[in-house]
């Protein structure tokens, strides 16, 4: 199989998954087969992307040009290290999530499961399209597709609340992408006559500093999925979706699509040299730092577990934007790493939140007292993933934070120390919003243990969520541990 076909196969497998969901779940009425087919096809997708990794590591850049859409604008794909990493993360975690989702959707007795799985698979298709896009048009095409395909997942419950959230979701994401991102793309097209991703950037060195700043901000806010403040409100709203959606899409695929786009644009449209040479990036770094701290502070005040995690995501995404804005090799490396590290960590946290919901129907942090004793696996996984998000060795997240700090020191700005401080403060805040969950779970007294104390005494039987929910979260927790030890490979991959 040539690498060209491999790209096509990797892209089309999720579509196949969607079709098979539709057929097995809808037409043929075989939900069990449907739930087996999805992870299987997911594994195939991952294998296809993995195959591309070999080529990319060997220095190749597999390409696939489908056809010319407008004169000079092609629907085309090219796999480069950053896209490969994002593709690996999205397709790899899709396997785990589809298993988890099967457990969750059944355990929680959700309706419309077939529609759910179909759109889920299609969203992965769009995410892979973004990962492999070789020009801004293709990126934009799949970026918008991802927004629209995830919309039915956000409004899945069909309640008033879900519909309102769906409106905010579509409104903000399409508003930013159409009025900022598309405008920036058209402006780039006007300036340079091309929108191909080119190593070293396509904007000429003579582009004025003011123009670079404006364009950079347009791109950064235009990629609204990166949830930079003040365009972040869609993400907490998206939490009305079933938890597997929050886990894979709103902690991994969708939000990473935003920051991935920013990273990619910084590297291949602006070029690191152009950005480093202008002071454009300082404004973006400031916005990223602000988002990082504000979101963390808000997260501490959230009682709803998923909302807390959502704000944590906003904060953690800003790390990646910060890395991109540094416009240094280390910054970009850190950004790329954070994509993978945060993905593994945050998906675990959401899996845990979902498992708690399925097992106990509890959504609030303040209700979690003592649950750790009945759900030890879940809470242990939550603990590990929290450490990774905070950035404590030996968990994967620590490497991303480490490189980010190194990157901050490398930038030539006079107040590099300030950004260093921001990073440290943000990690500290992460301790405050994540650790209470673990502490309450393991150490607080269970409220029901008191007056209605049953004959079983204080040793209560385990009451974990279904196996299909717990196994994936343990797996991803271990993954974030493992990522600490394979970080070297990631560095090799991203050092292009």
């Amino acid at each position, binding site marked *: 199989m040539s690498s060209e076909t491999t790209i096509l196969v990797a892209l089309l497998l999720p579509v196949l998954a969607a079709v098979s969901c539709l057929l097995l779940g809808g037409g043929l009425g075989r939900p069990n087969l449907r739930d087996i087919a999805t992870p299987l096809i997911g594994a195939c997708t991952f294998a296809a992307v993995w195959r591309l990794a070999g080529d990319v590591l060997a220095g190749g850049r597999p390409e696939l040009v489908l*056809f010319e*859409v*407008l*004169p000079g604008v092609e*629907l085309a794909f090219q796999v480069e290290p950053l896209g490969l990493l994002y593709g690996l993360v999205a397709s790899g975690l899709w396997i785990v999530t589809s298993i988890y989702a099967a457990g969750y959707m059944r355990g929680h007795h959700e309706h419309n499961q077939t529609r759910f799985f179909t759109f889920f698979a299609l969203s992965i298709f769009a995410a892979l399209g973004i990962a492999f896009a070789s020009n801004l*048009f293709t990126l*934009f*095409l799949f970026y*918008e*597709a991802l927004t*629209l395909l995830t919309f*039915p997942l956000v*409004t899945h419950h*069909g309640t008033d609340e*879900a*519909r309102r959230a*769906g*409106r905010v979701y*579509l*409104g903000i994401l*399409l*508003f930013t992408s*159409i*009025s900022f991102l*598309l*405008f920036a793309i*058209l*402006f780039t*097209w*006007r300036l340079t006559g091309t929108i191909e991703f080119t190593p070293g950037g396509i904007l000429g060195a003579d582009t004025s500093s003011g123009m670079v700043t404006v364009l950079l901000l347009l791109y950064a806010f235009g990629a609204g999925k990166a949830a930079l403040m003040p365009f972040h409100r869609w993400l907490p709203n998206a939490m009305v979706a079933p938890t597997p959606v929050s886990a894979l899409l709103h902690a991994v695929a969708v939000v990473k699509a935003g920051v991935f786009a920013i990273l990619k644009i910084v590297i291949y449209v602006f070029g690191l040299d152009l950005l480093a040479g202008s002071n454009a990036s300082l404004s973006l770094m400031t916005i990223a730092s602000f988002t990082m701290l504000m979101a963390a502070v808000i997260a501490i005040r959230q009682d709803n577990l998923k909302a807390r995690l959502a704000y944590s995501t906003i904060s953690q995404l800003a790390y990646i934007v910060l890395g991109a804005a540094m416009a240094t090799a280390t910054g970009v490396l850190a950004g790329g790493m954070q994509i993978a590290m945060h993905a593994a960590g945050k998906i675990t946290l959401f899996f845990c939140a979902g498992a708690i919901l399925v097992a106990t129907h509890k959504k609030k942090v303040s209700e979690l007292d003592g649950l750790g004793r009945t759900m030890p696996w879940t809470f242990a996984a939550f603990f590990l993933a929290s450490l990774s998000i905070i950035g404590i060795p030996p968990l994967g997240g620590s490497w991303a934070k480490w490189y980010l700090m190194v990157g901050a020191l490398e930038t030539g700005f006079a107040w590099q120390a300030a950004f260093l401080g921001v990073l440290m403060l943000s990690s500290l805040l992460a301790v405050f919003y994540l650790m209470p969950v673990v502490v309450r779970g393991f150490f607080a007294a269970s409220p029901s243990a008191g007056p209605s104390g049953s004959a079983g005494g204080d040793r209560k039987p385990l009451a974990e969520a279904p196996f299909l929910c717990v196994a994936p979260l343990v797996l991803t927790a271990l993954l974030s541990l493992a990522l600490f030890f394979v970080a070297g490979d990631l560095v090799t991959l991203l050092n292009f």
Partner: protein
Amino acid sequence: MIEKILVLEVVLPLLAAPVCVLVRHPRFCRLFSLGVVAACFAIAVALLVEVRGGGVISYELGGWPPPLGIEYRVSTVNAYLLALVTSMALVVFSFDSRGGPPRVPEERRHLYYAVFLLCISGLLGIAITGDAFNIFVFLEISSLSSYILVSLGGHRRAVMSAFYYLVMGTIGGVFFMLGVGLLYQATGTLNLRDIAARLEPSLDDRGTVLALALLVVGISIKLAVFPLHHWLPNAYSFAPPKVSAFLAATATKVSFYLLAMVLFTIFGAPFVFEELRLQAVLLPLSILAMFLASGAAIFQTDLRRLLAYSSVAQIGYMTLGLSTANATGLAGGLVHLFNHAVMKGGLFLVVACLLYRVGSVHIDALAGIGRRMPLTSAALVIGGLSLIGVPGTVGFVSKWYLVSGVLERGWTAAAVLILLSSLLALVYVGKVVEVLYFRKPAETQPIDHVREAPLGMLAPAWVLAAAAVFFGLTTDWTYGVAREAAELLLAGGI
């Protein structure tokens, strides 16, 4: 050979109309008119293939050479229009409306087909003829027949709308006729190319400026340029659904061609856009149309009315492309003719499907229909996405070139406004989609009896929905042709 069949493009539907009147058999008339339209489409495609790349085909009517005789002349611009009108007519005619318009009894249905054919003949005539007064005649043929078609809608307000449309249309037609008269006075000829060659427009020559003003206002009424659009929402929302689809997809498009032809071929871009600076009026009006009409669409509770207001806004995009007066922007406006025809035609056909099954397209009646009529609703979603301009649909292609053209002109603010206005489309499309899929049907209006629309209705609607995606991804035959046409127009040719 190709010159000989050129004239058939107009003559075929013109002769087919009396045949329908004579034969009187509704089923025959339906199939016969479908066949005629298909033949016209084939001819139009053959012409387009022939003239692409700068060819011109000319036919002298009755053997009289121009400027004495009437010349039928087809270049890329005309051929593009012919292909647009006939393709849309073909799709709309193949739509099986199960019993024709509500106001027409079975024994008179042949007249309905005859009028429809006359309307097509008029529209094609406008696009094909090279004679100014001949244009007026065809304009009135198409207008008169469209007044009749609009009046056939089921609701009594259809007749009222048709009357209002007639009054407005006649005023527009007379303005146009006066403009042609002034041009004749100035140049002594009615042949378009002759007029263009002899006319030396200048601001000092009041007769010419007046001619331009009369022509522009007259055509603008027929085109429903904001603020001369008031006839359109009523006409489109009360006409029989099939007629709405046809008129939305073709009538305004031909008027747009006429406007472009007057501005670029007859008066010439240098005079209109550099001396007279028409864009100082046209650009603000276009932007106002985009915002006010889209804004009005948001507040409509009837799907047809919503789409009609959206049409007014979309016409704003077209005239915006016109006012850039550069190849990219004008091509963007021209390609939007076809693109908008595809999406709006498709959406009105979807409306026809919904009307047939649900009985109403009031927004409250559509709650939960997404599940009962999944294919129809999916076609509506595609059309809606296209209106917003999501990449991968035709709407995006239009927007891409319109914004590029505007940026080329250096109008950055206008570019931002175009993009912002598409968000209004997001609101009104989102409103409908949300109702279709996520709102529970009202207790008083059970929808259990609602079934998917029959294939004869669904297939044409889906052809246009599929075209909205197909031509959003391959643009050689849409943008490629539009670009050629735009360059031709800018060079003063037709």
